[in-house]
């Protein structure tokens, strides 16, 4: 049993992270569907404590970020990192250990939050034993990735981005959750509120986006044979992302109870984040130059590009909303949820696209059904077209009603109910799409056409 769990078989951890991401995704999106239903129709399962709305939202977010998104991104990132000198990962057993640690942490987190044990910090609800397991897993992954990359003779900005994500996560968890003092929250008052905001910003800009950027740049350039970003631009994007991303936390408190200078820092950083994200989008597009037909050939490429477009729109809307004028109206409203759909959904689409593109290089088999993958893309596309405008419009409506100061709050809730129903329909479509994705991966592993060993390599392009 232990030999199977901690096998040193080449790419075993990559396969397991991808499978786990697909399965956690089904569960995460089921919670999202339930949470969206409870927003539109508040009495859905209201009498069952372990699926009350507050707990469902907490578990859904935790599953989404740490289960679905993180597992998929780590799977794809480990495959890319291990390609370096064609020897695979420095230690498959350690990478497998981090997978089991994160899996156990995910199960415990869902169970404990369901039963009411929570730290009560949005996106940081998991109790401290879960956090410690996640931190241990993150440190193991960092060690494996560092030692794997150290063997490689090449300097590649895509791999540096991936490494930045692995280096950033432990620090974000350590500081954002106060894990240097694990048995007791070391933060109180406004410091606790600001560290919560730091954690949320860090999980997106210092973890998910660098990984999504690095993996997609590497995979696209390897598949098309065209480099994405020059070394200079790649490293500029990396440090822009990390530096500005680490400063965006106080943007959550525009007009709110933190010193004005801190609000300004957060707002400016939020605006500047557009630059590195646009650079990464340009890098992905540059890899595809002369290969635009691959957009129609392989759904994985279309997923990656759609993800970057959504992410870029999300960061632009987020920057707009943190400006003094617009934030008067949309701050604290559902506009923020619409932006999160675009940013986190964009990262997830990039991760899913890379997973589709990497199947021959991880499973040794061609994707079982491109038709199913195209259907998945359509389901997600329709869902975005429904949910993002619905939530943004709902946010504007809420903000406009609050600004009057005379219309009762309940009227705003009533007015946005049809938009919340549309968001529920979108969540349902994404959930169905996730089922299609997992089924396609299973079919590929089970009966996909074998790929010759030479074609399973993922050769990088000089200067990518």
């Amino acid at each position, binding site marked *: 049993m232990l030999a199977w769990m901690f096998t040193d078989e080449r790419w075993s951890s990559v396969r397991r992270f991808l499978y786990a991401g697909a399965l956690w995704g089904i569960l995460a999106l089921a919670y999202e569907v339930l949470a969206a239903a409870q927003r539109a129709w508040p009495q859905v399962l209201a009498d069952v404590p372990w699926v009350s709305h507050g707990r469902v939202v907490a578990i859904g977010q935790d599953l989404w970020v740490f289960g679905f998104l993180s597992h998929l991104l780590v799977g794809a990132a480990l495959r890319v990192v291990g390609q370096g000198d064609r020897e695979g990962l420095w230690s498959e057993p350690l990478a497998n250990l981090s997978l089991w640690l994160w899996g156990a942490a995910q199960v415990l987190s869902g169970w404990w939050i369901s039963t009411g044990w929570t730290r009560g910090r949005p996106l940081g609800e998991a109790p401290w034993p879960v956090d410690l397991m996640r931190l241990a897993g993150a440190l193991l992954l960092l060690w494996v990735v560092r030692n794997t990359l150290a063997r490689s003779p090449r300097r590649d900005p895509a791999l540096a981005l991936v490494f930045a994500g692995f280096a950033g996560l432990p620090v974000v968890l350590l500081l954002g959750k106060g894990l240097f003092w694990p048995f007791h929250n070391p933060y109180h008052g406004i410091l606790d509120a600001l560290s919560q905001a730091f954690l949320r910003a860090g999980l997106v800009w210092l973890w998910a986006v660098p990984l999504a950027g690095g993996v997609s740049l590497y995979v696209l350039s390897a598949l098309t044979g065209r480099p994405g970003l020059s070394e200079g631009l790649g490293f500029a994007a990396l440090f822009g992302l990390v530096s500005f991303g680490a400063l965006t936390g106080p943007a959550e*408190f525009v007009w*709110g109870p933190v010193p004005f200078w801190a609000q300004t820092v957060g707002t400016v950083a939020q605006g500047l984040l557009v630059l590195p994200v646009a650079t990464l989008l340009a890098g992905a597009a540059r890899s595809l130059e002369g290969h635009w037909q691959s957009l129609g050939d392989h759904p994985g490429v279309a997923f990656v590009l759609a993800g970057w477009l959504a992410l870029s729109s999300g960061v632009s809307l987020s920057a707009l909303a943190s400006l003094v004028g617009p934030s008067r109206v949309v701050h604290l409203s559902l506009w923020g949820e619409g932006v999160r759909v675009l940013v986190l959904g964009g990262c997830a689409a990039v991760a899913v696209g890379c997973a589709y593109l990497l199947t021959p290089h991880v499973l040794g088999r061609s994707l079982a059904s491109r038709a199913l993958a195209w259907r998945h893309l359509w389901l997600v596309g329709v869902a975005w077209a429904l949910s993002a405008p619905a939530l943004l419009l709902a946010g504007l409506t809420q903000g406009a009603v609050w600004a009057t100061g005379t219309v009762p709050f309940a009227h705003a809730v009533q007015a946005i109910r049809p938009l919340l129903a549309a968001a529920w329909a979108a969540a349902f479509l994404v959930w169905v799409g996730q089922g299609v994705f997992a089924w396609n991966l299973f079919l590929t592993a089970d009966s996909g056409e074998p790929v010759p060993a030479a074609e399973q390599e993922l050769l990088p392009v000089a200067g990518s």
Partner: protein
Amino acid sequence: MRDSVGATGRLVVAAVVCGFVVTALLPALDPAVRSARAAPLSAQAARGRWVYVREGCVACHTQQVRGVEARFSVVRAQGDVGEVSTAGQYAGQDPALPGRLRLGPDLARVGARSSGQELRSALLSGAGGMPSYRYLADAELADLVAYLLALR
């Protein structure tokens, strides 16, 4: 690539730590924040706060009045939100609950504009688009109402 991996790692860690210091630590060291103290909660209200945390009320309710919406300094009726919230208002809170999404009304001063009976009735019936919390034990409901009444 060993050298560039080490350099990248050190720069990333330095950027993240600086980000935390600038955006979390320094604002919290502001003299106005450090000198402020929030009104202490009674034992019952403190228990009610944990019911609030456990049920994830923060998923839909904020506890922060922003500068753009504070119109009246006195809270008398529904719709009045009172003075703008300050950082010191959260002093000592673990976890702090300013919230980031407002699907239900802001609760920063709900205790000043609602009676215990109104709050209890809203929690039980799920009025105004809120789910009902009939499954809470009577004592938990009383604790939660005591906490909400303490928000002034």
